[in-house]
């Protein structure tokens, strides 16, 4: 899956990494987004907009800035790649009432992002009504050039799939330092994107939930560092 192009790494540029799924070429971005140059499609997963206000409604006063932060990051990566289509791979809202809690300003931002391009919401468990309030097209899954884009990955060693939902994270041990970071997780034939949302946590790729996906072939990861994206040898992965 991970094409370690030496020239690219030598250039000291870790902001992007090339990766492939079933022979198709993609660019993984440090923000957690995935760009498909050949199709001009940008994919993000698990935005969990309005997670802050969701908690606040239940008495835990998380800062109300997560939607703004997530949309700001999304705007930046859209600017970077200029895609014709943006696909949000599910759990775009943290809960079904999220759209009604969104501020005017944030809705405004979203419509600006949606203008001039196709915007596709792939629905997940929490956000079936997203389209009605927030524009764009709503589908449960999408197939492009033989690759299926869906929210929840199939729990069997299938191929030709790009999904989200699991919020993959990897814990690695390097020279006595332990790091735990969100990551892209794949095996060259299917891929799980990291969660893009500002307040999202991560599930360890060595967790049982990932087992049915990658089988005995194992998984490769691309870690989202503070300043770059880094491949990490699988033998360094640790459980939580």
């Amino acid at each position, binding site marked *: 899956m991970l094409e370690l192009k030496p020239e690219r790494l030598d250039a*000291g540029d870790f902001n992007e990494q090339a990766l492939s799924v079933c022979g198709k070429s993609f660019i993984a971005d440090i923000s957690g987004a995935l760009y498909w140059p050949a199709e001009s499609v940008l994919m993000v997963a698990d935005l969990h907009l309005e997670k802050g206000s969701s908690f606040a409604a239940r008495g835990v*006063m998380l800062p*109300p800035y997560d939607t703004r932060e997530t949309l700001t990051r999304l705007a930046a990566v859209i600017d970077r790649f200029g895609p014709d289509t943006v696909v949000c791979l599910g759990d775009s809202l943290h809960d079904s009432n999220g759209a009604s809690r969104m501020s005017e300003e944030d809705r405004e931002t979203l419509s600006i992002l949606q203008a001039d391009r196709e915007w596709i919401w792939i629905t997940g468990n929490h956000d079936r009504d997203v389209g009605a309030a927030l524009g764009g097209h709503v589908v449960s899954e999408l197939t492009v050039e033989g690759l299926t884009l869906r929210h929840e990955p199939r729990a069997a060693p299938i191929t030709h799939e790009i999904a989200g939902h699991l919020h993959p994270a990897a814990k690695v041990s390097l020279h006595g330092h332990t790091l735990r970071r969100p990551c892209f997780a794949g095996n060259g034939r299917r891929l799980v994107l990291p969660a893009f949302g500002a307040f*999202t946590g991560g599930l360890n790729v060595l967790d049982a939930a990932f087992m049915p996906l990658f089988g005995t072939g194992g998984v490769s990861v691309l870690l989202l560092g503070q300043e770059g994206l880094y491949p990490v040898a699988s033998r360094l992965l640790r459980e939580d």
Partner: protein
Amino acid sequence: MLPAPFVRWFAARGWSPRAHQLALLDCAAARQPALLIAPTGAGKTLAGFLPSLVALSDPARSVEGAGLHTLYISPLKALAIDIARNLSAPISEMGLPVACETRTGDTPVSKRQRQRTRPPHMLLTTPEQIALMLSHRDAGHLFRDLDTVILDELHALAPSKRGDLLSLDLARLRTLAPRLMSIGLSATVGRPTELCAYLVPQLGPDERVDLAELVLAGGGAKPKISILELEEPVPWAGHSARYAIGEIYRAIERHRLTLVFVNTRMQAELIFQELWRANEEGLPIALHHGSLDVAQRRKVEAAMAAGRLRAVVATSTLDLGIDWGDVDLVIHVGAPKGASRLIQRIGRANHRLDEPSEALLVPANRFEVLECRAALEAAEAGEQDVLLSRSGALDVLAQHVLGMACQAPFRPDELFAEVRSALAYSSLARRDFDRVVDFVSTGGYALKTYERFARLKACEDGRLRLAHPSIARQYRLNAGTIIDSPMIKVRLTRARRAGPAATLLLSGGRLLGEVDESFIEQLTPGDTFVFAGEILRFAGLKDTEAFVTRSPDRYAMIPSYEGGKFPLSTHLAARVRALLADQSAWRHLPGPVAEWLSLQAERSAIPTADEVLIETFPRAGRHFLVVYPFEGRLAHQTLGMLLTRRLERRGAHPLGFVANDYGLSLWGLADLSELVASGKLDLARLFEEDMLGDDLDAWLAGSTMMKRTFRAAAVIAGLIERRHPGREKSGRQITMSTDLIYDVLRRHDPGHILLQAAWADAATGLLDLTRLGRFLSRLKGRIRHQALCHVSPLSVPILLEIGREPVAGEAGDRLLEAHALDLVAEALEGSEPQSEGKRNARAQARATRRR
């Protein structure tokens, strides 16, 4: 002044009441709050309780059905329990009609409930329990007849967040029981005035500070302190004191009962192991520290009191006033970090006031020899460290405000006045108070979208009340300010294998104690480490418990020295610098140490007490810069981070640094001596105070230590809950969430009150910024630079720390980058890891491009 039964009781014991005990009785009769400062063995606790015992035994008073009369508050659960044990003697021997009970986190729920409805006359408890009791609706009723509150070990409690919370609760107790009189008990301190002010309400104008009466017990005999000197030279670096184990053991053999004090739990474990390896006589030696299981600690305490032990290896859990057995020697391994700590610990030896205590200091490395020497001189001169005066923590205030709202609806004006009567909060601005209330209600964000979710609602009469009773339940589950890094329980299990996969069954087993979660995180199943006096093999984590099996190995794989929690105190640091600068004083030092300093004078320089020495020299393909501020490890680590950024910008390609209590050493690829000589690197500019401006700010954005500080404030303030009914959140989940919250707040709401609280903590806590700032201003115009061709003698101990102590988690991306390049090289070249030269070349090329 003393009633007849008491006079008879003293006589029966062969004691006569001390002057300070009678003085306290007089104060109490006049309802005058008082602070008693007395060394251990002076009958301090009895002095504190006498007024209450006398009052409760007054035949004119009807005690039937009377409510709570006296509260005794101590920082340690064990202390409260121990005091109760000691109190039962006079109460039963004099037949006093006094009911005395303890209440701690370990007290069964049913008993705690009964204590609220049918309280004893005297309740011995902890600050956290007071906060919880005050949050119940019946608090007014429970405390209405409260007469006296006794605060023990006040010197340890007051200057901390726990002390802040306690002072707010004291203010509330005074509102509920206006007659309340407070008595403080303290060990000797540098500035007793602050503790005197802590005890009484501050109700006057800002300039006036109200004080309790100060009662000083006459000093005891001077302690006999000596520093261990052996034929073998003191090691250059390290903290294990292994070289001196033989001598320590012999000292234990020569005495009845020895307390061996160390600074950290890990040191306790290691020394304990070493002593048992040397224990040919089979002497009973025990171990005592805060991570051990409670039952285990009680066993040790009981054995000590019964005279069944010859030595106990302990950390500060044994520091406070508990009085057990006849300790006739205190050994302090490693530097004591502060003159006051030394004196307090020595006070443990021989609790008879009139006989001198005996103490032996065992330095673990050469710098510690200087520190021990300075501490000894300070102790002999009777000097004390000074407790930094602090203003009350805002996150603690937030927890308190919520607690008070749980008790009853409140008027902001009234609560504000009550809060300000506590010393630490006496200059709290009304605006900040309102921001805290706003935080409790809606999170206090600049973006006002949470009004509809507010947790506090206004009543018609202007009082604020809880929006929902469930909030009170949540509060009680999470209250308490003791925030350590999350602890994981450690269970000893037998190796059982199950199934074809031959995995270890992780379940059941005896509880050994608790360990920092951050320590367990770095372990892989199979790693061995020392804990609870044994070598254990880590089997795995399950349901937030760590399972271990006994390991047959003689030595553990994981060294994990915890690096002292307390940095060298400012006062002691000044003494050490003076000692260093005074060549005539070197003859008091052990031969090898004096030689080492002479060599330093010859090869480099010895700074005067005012100067700050900076050395640059090459070694093994790297160039080093060593600076000796003597400001403690925390300030040095912060300085190291900031200097690294600055050196990067000036093209010096720094690769890393290491710091200890005395100094820090950075290393990199560029020839620093040359850069300074040619004027390309100006040391004065490098160390300029403005480092604490933009550089600091930029670094704080990603700093792990700052995030840790923020996490602590967020949990204390109640933003993030520690526990949820039915779902025990592990420390891991909280860490993740608060890092994300920190990032978002910095970007969108930089003035938020939690950031302000965390910043205030960082100034004196993990980042020690205040101390660093003072160093930087002291440094101006006083740099002494030595450009050398070789390693300097003075720098050797610091350099030896390299590889021993990993720098706190800031290296993340650099490590990932290096690893990624290694993977590429492996892929291209077959399997050879990169050579040093290639790594250097790459690092250089990368650094150039980054600019």
